[in-house]
């Protein structure tokens, strides 16, 4: 290609002059052809996503209308019965509730800790910051399966000490079966969840902090602003954009929590920690026991998954609206 990149994107004019009016219809084909290499570069990603992410989602939509154990092709058409069944299933709604509790406790707590740590570790005068960063990030690289096995061993199997931790302090009457007691199990799962993925948010925040020009702090300091002032009038506002992305990502991740719960409690005891994805999993793959004596119900699982997706989309829309309103109010008060 010897053309001087006709497809190159122009940087929007800072003066805000409007972009050239849309080209005529005939121009479209030319523009497509001119951008040929752009499409070629896009293709590997687009093909993979279309084939292995988008297509399967749509393909599995069809299952929602069948009662099907996942073998052969679905044949027993049941219409909307699967949706009705899920909507009337108290275990499903319990799972939705647990998932939301998980997300709404985990996200704020984890982000707060991550932000505080990021502020501390971002200080260039702090020695061993690389070391500490590594320490707090390391849980992220471990698989949920290993985390589950080790935590379960520690907490219940071999953790008499862990169980009796508070027994002597008079806080509780006796030994607690942390993952086996319906009152504590979800809280413990959340705590382990916070521990496990804090590292991601830590580095996101650190990355965000690094984009704040040091001159801003210098200027503020010269003006006599203390660290607290600096935090509230420079750090927080400058982090807002990144922060929104971090919050959204954290919620997306939390709403899809699965491995950790599956390996720690399997949703038990008696559904006390069942989240939506373990609920779907149990439907799609039958019971957890050995050789799977329980018939899977793929149609029901797909319907539950679809309904949950709808819920999430509604929630995301609400979130976007709320953030936008918040942003507008901020902008309004700044004027």
């Amino acid at each position, binding site marked *: 290609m010897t053309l001087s990149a006709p497809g190159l994107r122009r940087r929007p004019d800072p003066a805000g002059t409007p972009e050239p009016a849309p080209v005529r219809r005939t121009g479209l084909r030319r523009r497509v052809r001119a951008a040929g290499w752009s499409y070629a570069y*896009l293709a590997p990603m687009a093909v993979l*996503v279309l084939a292995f992410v988008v297509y399967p989602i749509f393909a599995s939509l069809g299952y929602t209308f069948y009662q099907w154990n996942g073998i052969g092709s679905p044949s027993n058409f049941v219409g909307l019965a699967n949706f009705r069944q899920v909507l009337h299933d108290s275990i499903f709604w319990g799972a939705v509730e647990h998932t939301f509790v998980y997300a709404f406790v985990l996200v704020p707590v984890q982000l707060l800790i991550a932000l505080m740590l990021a502020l501390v570790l971002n200080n260039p005068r702090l020695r061993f910051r690389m070391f500490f960063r590594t320490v707090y990030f390391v849980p992220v690289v471990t698989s949920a399966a290993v985390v589950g096995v080790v935590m379960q061993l*520690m907490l219940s199997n071999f*953790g008499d000490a862990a169980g009796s931790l508070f027994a002597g302090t008079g806080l509780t009457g006796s030994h607690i079966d942390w993952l086996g007691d319906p009152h504590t199990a979800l809280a413990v799962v959340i705590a382990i969840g916070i521990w496990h993925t804090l590292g991601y948010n830590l580095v996101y925040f650190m990355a965000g902090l690094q984009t704040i020009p040091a001159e801003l702090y210098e200027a503020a300091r010269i003006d006599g602003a203390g660290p607290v002032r600096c935090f509230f009038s420079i750090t927080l506002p400058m982090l807002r954009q990144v922060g929104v992305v971090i919050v959204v990502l954290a919620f997306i991740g939390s709403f899809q929590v699965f491995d950790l719960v599956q390996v720690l409690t399997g949703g038990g005891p008696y559904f006390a920690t069942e989240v939506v994805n373990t609920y779907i999993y149990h439907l799609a793959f039958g019971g957890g026991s050995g050789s799977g004596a329980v018939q899977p119900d793929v149609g029901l699982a797909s319907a539950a998954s679809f309904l949950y997706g709808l819920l999430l989309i509604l929630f995301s829309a609400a979130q976007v609206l709320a953030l936008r309103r918040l942003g507008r109010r901020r902008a309004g008060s700044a004027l």
Partner: protein
Amino acid sequence: MRTGPIARTGRRGLLYLALTAGGLLWLYPFLWAVGGSLKSDDDFFATGLDPFTTHPQWSNYSQAWEEGDFGRYFLNTVLFAGGTVVLTVLATAMAGYVLARTEFPGRKAVLALIGATLFLPHGYTIIPVFDLIQRLHLLNTLWALIIVQSASGMVFGTFLFMGYFSTIDRGLEEAARVDGADFHQVFWRIMLPLSGPMLATVALFSCINAWNSFFVPLVFTLSRPDLHTLTVGMFTFLGENSTAWTLVCAGSVITLLPIVAVFLGLQRYFVNGLAGAVKE
């Protein structure tokens, strides 16, 4: 800062103390697992939460290595994770570049579509994916694992690269064009080398995910246990009715060490890469 040097030193000390204490707490499960991997069976039950043992049993590692057939699984995992990293990084870098730096009809639609996949429920998609892989005649090959695993990391990686490329100074690119560099040269010789930190970041993310992936390697190599990966191999230890706890710990450590090493190697670039991506 109007505090005196002594107070400041004291505060510093307190800070280090807190960071260290927190760090110990944070790493405790790892220490405990490493300790457990060195204990004898009886020790394991006797010592409870204490990670230390007086008589380290190094043979646990050789035993786990052999019994778990970790040698073979290790090679498979390296190939699988390596292939996934290469495919993911190349595909997402190219896509991120054209989405960030070129204008073409349909660009907005592509962005909307891949953005939506972050929110859409993935549900029970294993059968369509399985059928697709089978029709491609890739079942029971490492290629199947690499392709399916890479596909799952595409969207996130593309967004990261897009963010990163959009912050790189346009001057470089334009100067190269003036010098007669074409589209490919600009990307491969200028933009890609400049995106080192982001390459490291996406490579690390996709490596972590591939390394820890369980379901994909299990399902797509179902008739080829010799192609299983470390995570699947770990289940040898978690056999139905008996479990060698100390070996489980040793196996976990063996499984974890390489990925921790990869992280240590790449982490220098890591935060910078993310910082680049979020600048705008």
